[in-house]
Structures are given as structure tokens and as C-alpha cells.
């Protein structure tokens, strides 16, 4: 899978610190019930996924870390053409915004939906197109984390899945 990269280490470190703090706070509460392991796992995944998305998007504009070797990848021409028409810039803006929202837990259900098309593209390029080595791990992790988080916030999506939805305009009071 190759060596560890900043894109992986920084988000995982942030997620681990946040979970440790949450765990300590949970244990120090006098009325603490049974340990909410699942909630801590979801918190770790949310922080790791959000921070990874934020770092990936921000690095595109700030050039902090060495860029991934995209030219030698089979996905290289696609990324190049996307950049040429301005689509890649838009995707990176979405990553920054969605990543920040997920980390700060502001409108998380919306941010997970915003990020999902990018996740599917990353999965497709990494697993289906490249299909070997480290990208396979990255692609599966991206899809698994986004899917787990969508399931963890599924309660917010249920109204949207109404099979026979009627018009409910924003400008009309419920």
C-alpha cells in the first residue's frame, strides 16, 4: 500500500485526539451510562472523513504537501481535462466546504450528500480504473466511510425518500 501520507496521518490523528477527549469527557460524567462505543466509532469516522476531505481540498489551493503523481495514473488525462474546463476547481471548493462542515458538525447530513458524488468518483477512479496498490485502499475507505456516515445520519434523509412526494415549496409555510 506504500508509505503513510499526510492526507492519511493528519485526519487520523485529529480524529483520534477528538475521540480520546470525548471518551474522557464521557467517563468523567457522574451520570455516565454504559460506554457509547458505537457513537465514538461514528465520531472517529466523521472526524477522519471530514478532515481528510478538508485537507485534500485545501491542499489543492495552498500547495502544502507534494501533489499526488496523477500524471502516471490512468486517471491522469481525466483530471487534466477536468482542470482545463474548471470542474476540478469546483470539486475542490466543494471538498473544502463539505469537509469543514463535517469536521465542525454543521449541517453534517447535507455535507455528506454534497460529498457523495465526489466519493463515488474517487471510488470509481481508484478501484475500477486504477485497480491496484494503494488507490484500491483509498477508494474503498472513502466509499465505506461516506456510506457508514450516511447510514449514521439516515434519520435526516427519510423525509426526502417519500415515494409520492408532493410539491412543498420553501416559500410556503408548512
Amino acid at each position: 500500500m506504500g508509505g503513510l501520507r499526510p492526507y492519511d496521518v493528519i485526519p487520523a490523528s485529529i480524529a483520534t485526539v477528538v475521540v480520546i477527549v470525548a471518551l474522557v469527557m464521557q467517563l468523567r460524567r457522574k451520570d455516565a451510562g454504559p460506554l457509547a462505543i458505537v457513537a465514538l466509532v461514528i465520531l472517529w469516522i466523521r472526524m477522519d472523513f471530514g478532515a481528510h476531505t478538508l485537507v485534500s481540498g485545501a491542499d489543492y489551493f495552498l500547495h502544502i504537501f507534494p501533489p499526488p503523481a496523477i500524471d502516471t495514473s490512468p486517471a491522469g488525462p481525466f483530471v487534466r481535462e477536468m482542470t482545463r474546463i474548471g470542474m476540478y476547481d469546483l470539486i475542490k471548493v466543494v471538498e473544502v466546504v463539505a469537509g469543514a462542515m463535517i469536521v465542525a458538525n454543521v449541517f453534517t447530513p447535507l455535507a455528506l450528500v454534497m460529498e457523495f458524488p465526489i466519493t463515488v468518483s474517487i471510488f470509481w477512479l481508484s478501484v475500477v480504473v486504477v485497480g491496484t496498490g494503494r488507490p484500491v485502499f483509498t477508494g474503498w475507505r472513502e466509499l465505506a466511510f461516506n456510506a457508514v456516515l450516511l447510514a449514521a445520519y439516515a434519520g435526516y434523509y427519510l423525509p426526502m425518500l417519500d415515494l409520492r412526494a408532493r410539491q412543498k415549496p420553501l416559500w410556503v409555510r408548512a
Partner: protein
Amino acid sequence: MSGWGAALERYGLLFMRVYLGGFNFISGLNYYAHLTHQPIPADAAGRAFMESTMALGLFQLAKAVELTAGFLLLTNINVPFALVLLFPVTTNVFVMNVFSSPLLHVKASGARNFLFHLLLIAGYGRYYLPLIRPFAPARPIWRKDAP
């Protein structure tokens, strides 16, 4: 809202739903059923982008999304979900058509579909309100109190 206003809202949204649904359904169907020739961007950058997506299978995936979401919009099944499903494709087409194509009618087509899509999202906006809750706690699908 007055009678005319309510009728305009209702039938305006109906028109946009059927138009956007029909447009995408035909566009998706055409790719697989070869009803007519596949439109190719007039500009070099758009053409190169389309070719790169075809080489990777992403174009085919987008056409499957157009077909599915278009059908859902046309048949009024799960419209709020269909609008979310189709939004990345509409955005992509909007960017390509409006900022890349030299042809005015192509620019207008991309802008019109994007506008219709935004208006439809607003027209079904109350289904999306739960998504914009700040500091939302998790509501897992596996917990009985999720809704």
C-alpha cells in the same frame, strides 16, 4: 397566495419537473438505444473532457443516472431523491455548456436546465430542511428512534 399565483406555482413546477425529467430521460436513453447521434461538444476542451470520461466509464455512469433520475421525475416517483441524484450531472453539464461551449443555444440549454433544477429543489425544499440542521446528532438507520 392568490389563485393565479398558486396556479402559476403549481403548474410552473409541474412543467419544470416534466421538462427536466423528459430531457434527461431521453438524453440517457439515447446513449444506450442510439435513437439519434450522440451530441459532441463543439469546443476542443469539452470534447477532450467528454472523451476522457468515456474512456474511464464515467460518461456511461452519468447516462445511467440521467436515465434513472429522468424516469423518476417524469413519473413523479421519489422526486426529492431524484433531484439530489441528478444534481451532480446537471452541475457538470452547466459548467461544460455555459463556460466552455462557444454555441449560444448550448449555453442557454445548460443554464436553463440548471435554473429549472434549482427551482425544483426550492419547490420541494421542505423535504430537505432536516438536512440543514446545525450540530445534528447522529440518527442511525439501525436505531428505532431514527426518524
